[in-house]
């Protein structure tokens, strides 16, 4: 017998698929869903960070190679410079101090490059998008926008290296004063825009 009355079912709200588990951050993490132990300034008590992004670790390869070359330079150059006129006149303690200083400078160079990578962070919470830029040791810029102001999100991934390591630039266009947010060279860009699009959809339907 055919049904005469079928109760209208409420349209289901699109929901963001919850990640399988919270992610643990390690010093070289560049993509983490629901990261543990991450907090930012002005974060609301009930605000959860859904996505933590940094540039892909592969973008650090140039300065890592430079650091290794600089670290290996003295042992390679000692046979050449060790008996040159200037170094032959210096006592052993002077050579020790100069070499020690050289290695501290090289390690500081590596530390600064690492810090530049470490503190350039993009966060996606259930309420907003946060973009933290850090450069030149003394400059930092924190930009935030509400998810309701996000108009469009897309990504570009071009080149062999980016395709091979699966990272690209995500562009978030907003209606706010700051018209766009760039997440440069972030891993899994298609996953990132999928999560942001689902969040935008959910916000608009609420």
């Amino acid at each position, binding site marked *: 017998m055919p049904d005469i009355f079928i109760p209208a079912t409420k349209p289901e709200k699109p929901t963001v698929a919850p990640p399988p588990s919270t992610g643990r*951050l*390690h*010093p070289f*993490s560049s993509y983490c869903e629901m990261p*543990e*132990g*991450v*907090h*930012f*300034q002005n974060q609301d008590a009930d605000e959860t960070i859904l996505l933590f992004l940094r540039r892909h670790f592969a973008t650090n390869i140039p300065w890592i190679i430079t650091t290794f070359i600089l670290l290996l330079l003295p042992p390679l150059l000692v046979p050449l410079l060790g008996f040159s006129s200037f170094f032959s*006149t*210096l*006592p052993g*303690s*002077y050579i020790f*101090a*100069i070499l*020690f*200083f050289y290695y*501290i*400078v090289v*390690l*500081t160079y590596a*530390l*600064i490059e*690492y*810090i530049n990578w*470490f*503190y350039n*962070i993009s*966060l996606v919470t259930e309420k907003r998008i946060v973009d*933290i830029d*850090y450069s030149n*040791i*003394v400059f*930092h810029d*924190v930009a935030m926008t509400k998810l309701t102001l996000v108009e469009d999100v897309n990504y570009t991934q071009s080149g062999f290296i980016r395709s091979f390591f699966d990272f690209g630039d995500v562009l978030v266009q907003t209606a706010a004063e700051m018209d766009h947010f760039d997440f440069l060279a972030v891993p899994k860009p298609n996953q990132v825009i999928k999560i942001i699009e689902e969040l935008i959809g959910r916000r608009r339907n609420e």
Partner: protein
Amino acid sequence: MIDWFFALFQPLVFTKLILAVLLFLFAIFLFVIITQINRMNAVVAQGTSSVILLILASILFAGTIFLLIFTVIVV
């Protein structure tokens, strides 16, 4: 009276002086880096990773101070 001034320009003394000045400036630079790491940790805390970074910077700072003392006293 000004023998000490001319003594500064002897090669070894001059090298030591330059090294000590460079180390002093570098120690200030590292101190600025440590304060910036502290400031950025207040902006965004990242658990133990932030602490590890601070410890690494402090080790470099301590190494520089050690070398500065070594240069002034021992060298």
